[in-house]
């Protein structure tokens, strides 16, 4: 028995040594995430990262639970010390701290998802990426609109108000809920939406509370841009249809899950890995689209979606691809309330509009500054359509107007 134990110990020790000296030839790639796999947002990154590393045969290491502070610099520096040639970070607040690491390690590429400072930072090895997720949100909104229309047809007294749980009051979230709302509005033209912020990316209690408050306030359908299971499970408990984000929530919400939009980060990860392997440069700002498979919608839920949703989605998706539909088509919404806004952070001075309240010009905050000053004209006219050119000037969203029909609680 003793001898067997000794042999086993020796074997394990050898295995340990082997694992230490083994894959020296594989390129090392790192990912820093704000939370772990319990967060739907971070899981979406982790899954894509694993898939990309497997597909490209590189050695991927993930560090979860990286705070949006100096901890991010430390974690990135440690990955550099461990030999990583390419490092990704997944949260908006990581950017500044990742940039600090990038300044120190010129031969390592740093890629930051959702950030907005790369194009002004002028740091050659630092890159931002996002996706035109507003198109995915729009499609999810169409599915929500179909469901709302079905509910109204079944019972004419159904409230035409929908609810949205958002994390923080800035462009990424505002652009997301506006595109979703416009998707719903393309089906039910007189829909209104109430938004509640949780002021956290991941706060299950706050998200559940906000969803419940919206439901109690008469919202017929709920969607969210926050990363826990709080809102979807609150909807399941009250049997209110839910439009999810970051991936399907059907496993825990079989009766209320309609559809989810998500960003598939795998194409970006693979592109960056290839670029580093071949010594090519990575775009300072990269925006994935439906065409690059970066913007995805999940399969429809089995129970909740309205009949005919799939056909409608296919039709709209094709039109988005061809450019026949622009999500932020200025003729589909008005901005009277935003123009009349006199609060501290009013965008009114950047807005020009016609007599009907449709946008004709908007100075967006593309070059990031702390005061969110508008600096770049974002309204474009192309092929007879006037639209807000989201994610064309940089990858991260900059649509930050609260349009008519949306109210902030």
């Amino acid at each position, binding site marked *: 028995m003793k001898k067997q134990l000794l042999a086993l110990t020796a074997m*394990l*020790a050898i*295995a*340990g040594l082997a*694992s*230490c000296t083994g894959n020296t030839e594989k390129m090392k790639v790192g990912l820093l995430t704000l*939370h*772990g*796999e*319990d967060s739907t947002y971070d*899981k979406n990154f*982790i899954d894509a990262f*694993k898939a990309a590393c497997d597909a490209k045969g590189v050695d*991927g*290491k*993930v*560090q*979860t*639970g990286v*705070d*949006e*502070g*100096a901890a991010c610099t*430390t974690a990135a*520096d*440690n990955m550099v*010390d461990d030999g990583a040639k390419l490092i990704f970070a997944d949260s*908006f*607040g990581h950017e*500044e*701290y990742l940039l*600090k690491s990038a300044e120190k390690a010129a031969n390592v590429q740093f890629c930051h998802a959702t950030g907005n400072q790369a194009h002004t930072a002028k740091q050659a090895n630092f890159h931002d990426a996002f996706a035109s997720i507003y198109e995915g949100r729009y499609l999810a909104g169409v599915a929500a609109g179909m469901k709302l229309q079905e509910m109204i047809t079944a019972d004419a007294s159904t409230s035409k108000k929908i609810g949205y749980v958002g*994390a*923080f*009051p*800035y462009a990424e979230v505002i652009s997301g809920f506006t595109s979703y709302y416009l998707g719903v509005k393309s089906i039910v033209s007189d829909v209104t939406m109430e938004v509640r912020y949780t*002021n956290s*990316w991941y706060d299950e209690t706050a998200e559940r509370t906000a969803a419940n408050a919206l439901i109690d306030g008469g919202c017929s359908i709920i969607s969210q841009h926050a990363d826990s299971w709080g809102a979807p499970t609150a909807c399941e408990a009250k049997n209110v249809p839910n439009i999810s984000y970051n991936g399907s929530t059907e496993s825990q919400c079989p009766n209320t899950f309609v559809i989810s939009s998500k960003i598939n980060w795998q194409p970006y990860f693979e592109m960056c890995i290839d670029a580093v392997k071949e010594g090519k440069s990575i775009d300072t700002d990269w925006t994935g689209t439906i065409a690059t498979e970066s913007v995805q919608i999940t399969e429809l839920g089995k129970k909740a979606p309205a009949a005919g949703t799939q056909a409608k989605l296919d039709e709209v998706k094709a039109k988005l691809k061809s450019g026949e539909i622009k999500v932020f088509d200025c003729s589909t919404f008005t901005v009277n309330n935003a123009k009349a806004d006199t609060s*501290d*952070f009013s965008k009114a001075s950047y807005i020009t509009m016609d007599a009907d309240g449709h946008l004709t010009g908007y100075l967006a905050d593309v070059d990031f500054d*702390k005061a*969110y000053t508008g600096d770049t004209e974002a309204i474009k006219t192309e092929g007879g359509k006037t639209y807000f050119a989201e994610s064309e000037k940089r990858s991260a969203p900059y649509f930050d107007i609260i349009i008519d029909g949306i109210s902030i609680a």
Partner: protein
Amino acid sequence: MPEKMTAKKEKNKLFHVEKRFDMPLWQSLLIRFGFIVVALFIALLILTISYGVNPFAAVGQMFIGSFGTPKRFWDFFRDGALLLGVGLALIPSFKMKFWNLGGNGQIIVGALVSAILMIDLGGKLPDAVVLLIMIPSSILAGAVWAAIPAIFKALFNTNESLFTLMMNYVSVGLVNAFIMFKYPIGSHIIPRLNNANFPTLFNDSLLIILIVLVLLAFMVYYLKFSKHGYELSVVGESMNTARYVGINVKKVIIRTIVVSGAICGFIGCLLASGVDFTVMPTTGNNMGFTAIIAVWLAKFNPIITAATSFFIVFITRGMTKVQSDNNIMNDATPNLVIGLIYFFIIGCEFFIEYKLLINKGGKEMKITEFIKSLFTSKVDKVKLPPATEGVEEEEVK
């Protein structure tokens, strides 16, 4: 009849616990070390079973995580020093049996005041001037934050554990309110503060480490050789004795807690201006609580607290490395392992404080004796014919 039965039960109790008075230091250290080894073994076993972690490689990764590169090496000593600093802050209040659970809050208000001054004065005044305002202000903030529950304790005998604990939540609320007020849009993160950063010596860590070493020397002197240190330990032993010998108990309570809070406030200043360059609701990373374990294990001895602090930082940093090297995608697993190790270390104190006697056939014996008796009894019962050793062994089983 029932009385007789209980009496009989008493007699046959399997275990009997007795207070120890005579354990030499080397033995108690050996017990602690043994428990740490056992805890690590079980922790690694869990990781091996659930994630296929190679336990031998994991031990190596733990060391690499703390000392593997110059950066990790310095970060390790800096984090250990900061935890020790908080521990040093807690020691005087704990020695006085004032359970200051508000270290976190005192750190956070110190950091908040530093951050506010860095934001509002940084760039407008020379950095040195801002720092000269910042350091005493943070110290004052921490002291005030601790003094509030201390005054209530001294004057109205309120429960200090609850009071200090609740003050933590208030401080987190203050940070959130400040951020909401100052940065109402965006994802509520204060941009990295680049003005009035704490000076550095050779690298980011050395000066902080040296400062905490000075603090350690001060605390050893304060507790052992100063009148204050004597007074607070008398108050801790017995308030009535303290009153009898003419110590102003109220004054000592408030004074000691102010010292405690002031040090925490200063650590907050170091964090905001020299480590994080910002303030967050999570500033201090719960060091106010972690330090309690460090201090408790060290029996409120400042020098041993240094050892326990560095040990805690070692397992924390080590587990972070194990987590990322083995692609463990959640923070719960490393926390579970760290918790398990704490549990074992705290649990082993029982065996140091008490003797466990086992009743076997009416005879009480120590664990070592009991184990010995198990083996000897085997030999007693089974008379082995020398030729059939193997077969007999089977029978025993």
